[in-house]
């Protein structure tokens, strides 16, 4: 009788036989080499988009918000749609880094660094929309409660729009601190193996003088745990507050109590889709398939099918309540102008992309297919963009006064602004992928012993001895 037992459910988190040094080599060496042609192509496309976005924003600031196709019926259009979409995308990063840390999910170590980076870049993109939407952006500081010469007149602390200011800025700050404190030890690794003077200087500055002292690690662990504990309610609060922007109003289609959980589930759904898009490309280009494995993709696809179904339930609940609530205006919004009517097509794109197609992930084969996952990640992101568009525009374009009914299609500066945020997002991501350790090196090393091929090899000695001898040795360990 042998003791060998190998789990078929828990696959290794890192594939291949590796020691600590090999992990460092695999993850750090892309930083030290020259970027490939693909990187340059992608980077310059992103820069071009960013430039076009900057021009569109310039156009809007120069001529005023009138260059957008918003009107007195549809006061929120692509801008707020994009804002909610980008904020939502950010949520997956915090979920992976914070909530999965609290739940002790080992697989998060392979993907958390890139996902957190995505969070930060997505929130940077999101924040611009409400600010530019203000019109007179040079007055943007009026949203801050600072002592002013007008009284002082303070901001309205009862307003969900002000809660948003606090929520988004706190979210950005805390995510950045969490991400950077995790990066310190990895920057030190890059610094200590740097061959060129410039790299030593820059990574030396970035690593803040980290040495790897045991006391520092102890504090670092405590810090990560508390930051994770703080980020977990924070991430839920952020999209809850974003949903309050709508839910505390009295517009039929917005005035619903289901919004906070529905928005949070949707945010995680779209965020995981974006993580998949980015990581499938990253693992391929940087040859990190052994660290970001099919197992990681499968785990994330499970989250996608779960949150997608939660979102689907929310859609159906909304429809049910619109009928059961017996409010004729709400009924009209949902059944006449959202699921039907001139903008009805957007509702059905949303339904198809968010509720129907993700159901393929009930099949293991689909969850583990790179091509299907990549395609689905794009589809889900399109679907989630349309969800926000549907919520915002189909609730507004048919209001209480038929004479002010309207239709909405964006103007070029609105589209350009959106494209510009893609430019910003991918410019940042390309720089991150080239100059930062895309996988948390120290964290991978800390799980290597318990989940790797070399651990399995060490166990062979024990596995081949008889159960009786093993039991005897354990009983007389001293």
């Amino acid at each position, binding site marked *: 009788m042998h003791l060998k037992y190998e789990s078929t459910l828990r696959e290794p988190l890192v594939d291949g036989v590796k020691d600590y040094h090999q992990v*460092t080599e695999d993850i750090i060496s892309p930083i030290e080499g020259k970027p490939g042609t693909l990187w340059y192509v992608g980077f310059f496309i992103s820069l071009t988009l960013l430039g076009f976005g900057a021009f569109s924003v310039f156009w809007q600031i120069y001529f005023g918000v009138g260059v957008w196709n918003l009107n007195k019926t549809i006061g929120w259009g692509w801008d707020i749609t994009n804002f909610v979409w980008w904020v939502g995308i950010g949520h997956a990063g915090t979920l992976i880094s914070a909530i999965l840390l609290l739940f002790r999910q080992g697989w998060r170590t392979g993907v958390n660094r890139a996902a957190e980076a995505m969070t930060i870049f997505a929130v940077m993109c999101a924040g611009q929309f409400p600010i530019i939407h203000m019109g007179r952006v040079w007055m943007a500081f009026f949203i801050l409660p600072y002592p002013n010469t007008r009284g002082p007149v303070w901001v309205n602390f009862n307003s969900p729009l002000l809660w948003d200011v606090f929520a988004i800025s706190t979210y950005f700050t805390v995510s950045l*601190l969490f991400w950077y404190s995790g990066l310190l030890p990895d920057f030190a690794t890059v610094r*200590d193996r740097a061959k060129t003077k410039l790299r030593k200087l820059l990574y030396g500055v970035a690593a803040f003088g980290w040495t790897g002292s045991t006391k520092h690690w102890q504090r670092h662990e*405590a810090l990560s745990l*508390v930051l994770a504990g703080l980020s977990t309610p*924070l991430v839920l609060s952020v999209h809850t507050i974003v949903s309050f922007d709508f839910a505390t109003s009295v517009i039929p289609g917005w005035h619903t109590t289901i919004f906070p959980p529905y928005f949070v589930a949707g945010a995680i759904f779209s965020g995981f889709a974006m993580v998949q898009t980015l990581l499938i490309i990253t693992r391929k280009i940087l040859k990190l398939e052994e660290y970001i494995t099919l197992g990681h993709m499968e785990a994330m696809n499970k989250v996608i099918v779960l949150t997608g179904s939660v979102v689907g339930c929310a859609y159906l609940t909304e429809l049910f309540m619109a009928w059961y609530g017996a409010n004729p205006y709400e009924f009209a919004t949902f059944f006449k102008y959202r699921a039907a009517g001139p903008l009805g097509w957007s509702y059905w794109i949303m339904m198809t992309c968010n509720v129907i197609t993700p159901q393929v992930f009930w099949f293991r084969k689909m969850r583990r297919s790179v091509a299907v996952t990549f395609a689905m990640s794009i589809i889900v992101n399109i679907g989630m963009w349309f969800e926000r568009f549907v919520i915002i525009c189909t609730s507004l374009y048919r209001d209480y006064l038929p004479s002010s009914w309207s239709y909405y299609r964006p103007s070029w500066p609105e589209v350009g602004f959106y494209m510009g945020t893609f430019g910003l997002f991918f410019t940042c991501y390309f720089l991150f992928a080239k100059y930062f350790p895309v996988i948390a090196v*120290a964290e991978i090393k800390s799980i290597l012993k318990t989940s790797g091929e070399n651990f399995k090899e060490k166990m062979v000695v024990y596995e081949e001895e008889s159960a009786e001898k093993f039991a005897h040795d354990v009983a007389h360990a001293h």
Partner: protein
Amino acid sequence: MAVKKFVVGLFDDEAVLFPAVKKVRAAGYKLHDVYTPFPVHGLDHAMGLRETSLHTAGFVYGITGTTTALSFMSWVFNSDWPLNIGGKPHFPLPAFIPITFELTVLFAAVGMVMTFCYLCQLMPFVKKHIFHPRQTDDKFVMVIEVTEKTNAEEVKSFLAGAGAQDINEQKAEAGWWFGRWDKDDEPYLRKIQTTNA
């Protein structure tokens, strides 16, 4: 800050490191520090370090945030500029919750990270002596301080017996200093004396 003499030993594996730490402490040598490339669980206890109070600091910062937010908003709405907003109460506690929560988290996170950086002396352009370049890669580096009571040669053979490799003696700055990482500018230190065992 002072220049001190150290005996440095390298370990490949945590499994060898742990008993070595125990032996060094039992022998009464002054363990300066152990540098590891990743957090090794239980090493802080093995070295006899006390638990960190960073959590408590975080709690205090959080409470400060809560108090700041609540007291500031109620001061603004009730005393500094009482404004009638649609006949709503001047102390609408439920409406204050979101901002109070956000500030609690913000204060706790920022305060803790700053305290962390202060305690560990982490800042751009802060430099410290790196005993071995691979202590952030794959080696566990044990550093024992040579005091006037210690016999360096004895420590070296002791470390060799405990399973350390590449044992050497270094004279180094024990604290931190400001400098650039591409320059060899360790203060008060003319030359690192390295003698292999």
